[in-house]
């Protein structure tokens, strides 16, 4: 049992390392190169909105960057794990490895980049004179909640993707919509009416971005009732998706 667990961890770790090396070329320069994407997003959104949506928001650049990083983490991790089972199908067809390890590997690979990007964000926060408060202790929990959300959705998507060709395109549309629904470049309180706001705030990813801004930008602890709600909601999503994945796990391998 212990051996099985250790082997599982070994496989996930090697997938993370291999994926990271493939994407960055195994060099620091390669990693910096991958930063161009969030950076260009930051510049474009800043130029578009800093005088309009962002005019009342202090440190709008950092406000934006927090939104962009958390959003990119979500969208990149789900897209990469959506493809993971299909792209590793030669391995899965010929050697017995738990399919969840493949999905976990691609999520954690993106998570590794996300953590490195956060280090740069931390540098900017210090550099801008904003600094950190004790609220930072809540931040690991926010990342954990986001990982759980990504994990659930990724398991479901990667499983569906084995059965249907067009899941990737449909998910792409969902992500395009999500970019505007999640408060990446605006403050929802500004133009969503009170009545609709409660509904709007039910989206767990919206809450995750709000928590991150509370902690990093406004230096206050996030609303704990909201946090509990998001945690339970995300946990439920994860277990439902995990159960679905497990149910189809054997059939998936035969279809590859």
């Amino acid at each position, binding site marked *: 049992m212990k*051996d099985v667990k*250790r*082997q599982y961890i*070994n*496989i996930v*770790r*090697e*997938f993370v*390392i*291999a994926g990271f*090396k*493939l994407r960055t070329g195994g060099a620091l320069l390669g990693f910096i190169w991958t930063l161009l994407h969030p950076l260009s997003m930051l510049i474009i959104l800043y130029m578009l909105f800093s005088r309009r949506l962002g005019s009342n928001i202090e440190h709008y650049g950092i406000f934006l960057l927090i939104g962009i990083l958390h959003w990119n983490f979500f969208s990149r991790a789900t897209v990469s794990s959506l493809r993971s089972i299909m792209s*590793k199908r*030669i*391995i*899965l*067809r*010929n*050697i*017995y*490895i738990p399919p969840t390890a493949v999905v976990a590997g691609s999520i954690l690979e993106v998570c590794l980049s996300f953590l490195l990007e956060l280090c740069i964000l931390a540098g900017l926060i210090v550099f801008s004179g904003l600094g950190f408060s004790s609220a930072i202790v809540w931040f690991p929990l926010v990342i954990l909640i986001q990982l759980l959300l990504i994990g659930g959705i990724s398991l479901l998507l990667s499983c569906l993707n*084995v*059965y*249907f*060709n*067009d*899941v990737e395109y*449909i998910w792409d549309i969902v992500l395009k919509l999500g970019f505007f629904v999640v408060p990446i470049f605006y403050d929802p309180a500004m133009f969503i009416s009170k009545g609709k706001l409660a509904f709007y705030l039910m989206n767990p990813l919206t809450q995750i971005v709000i928590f991150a801004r509370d902690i990093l930008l406004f230096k206050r602890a996030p609303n704990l009732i909201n946090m509990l709600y998001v945690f339970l909601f995300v946990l439920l999503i994860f277990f439902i998706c995990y159960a679905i994945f497990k149910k189809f796990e*054997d059939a998936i*391998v*035969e*279809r590859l």
Partner: protein
Amino acid sequence: MITLFNVSKKFRLYQNGRSILFKSILKAIRKESPPETIYALNNVNLDIRGGEVIGLIGPNGSGKSTLLKIICGIYKPTTGTARVDGKVISLFQLGFAFLPDLSVRDNIFLYGAIMGLGRKDIRDNLKKIIDFSCLQDFVDAEARVLSLGMEERLAFSIVIHAPSDILLLDETLTAGDRNFKNKALKIIEEFKAMGRTIIISSHDLNMLKQCCDRTLWLSSGHLVAFDNTGKVIDKYIDSCQG
């Protein structure tokens, strides 16, 4: 070590590929009849103990790979039970699955982990793995430059350094050169002496005669014979000519 009891494996014909979500919805609405099925394995009973080298023969599509995939756990039997004690490692001709853009060294770490080796085990054995596969000049090259025979050598070399009780080889020793084949056969002898079980599926009947104690003959998913290698292969050759 390996006990199969009445194992059957059913596959659907035609519907195994991916479809478009839209098409599937249409199908569900029209209530199309369920797809045809075939039995890749039909009521197979087997009992294999440790320390044996087993050959596996049969025409293409007779269920050899399906049998091996059930033994290593990739497939679950549709009916019947498969009991396998010990750690199984499989090496299939079409599934070396090295990542072409990654260096040979990085591929050894990835493949090794999949085969059950820890990072430290691999680091300790790295030189041995590379020496056995004779790929000293290719360690830092991308895996895409390897020929099929080189890939086979590398995969085999990793596999034999991983801990296992049962080793499944499906059409594996076909691309490596003569020199390597002899080395590999020697390793198989050593494994047998250590009490490990090796199952080799192959069309190279001479090789099987050389190294297998017993041989298993499958035809259209049925077990035709499982006996002394010489006997089974003679019968198989007769059936092929008749």
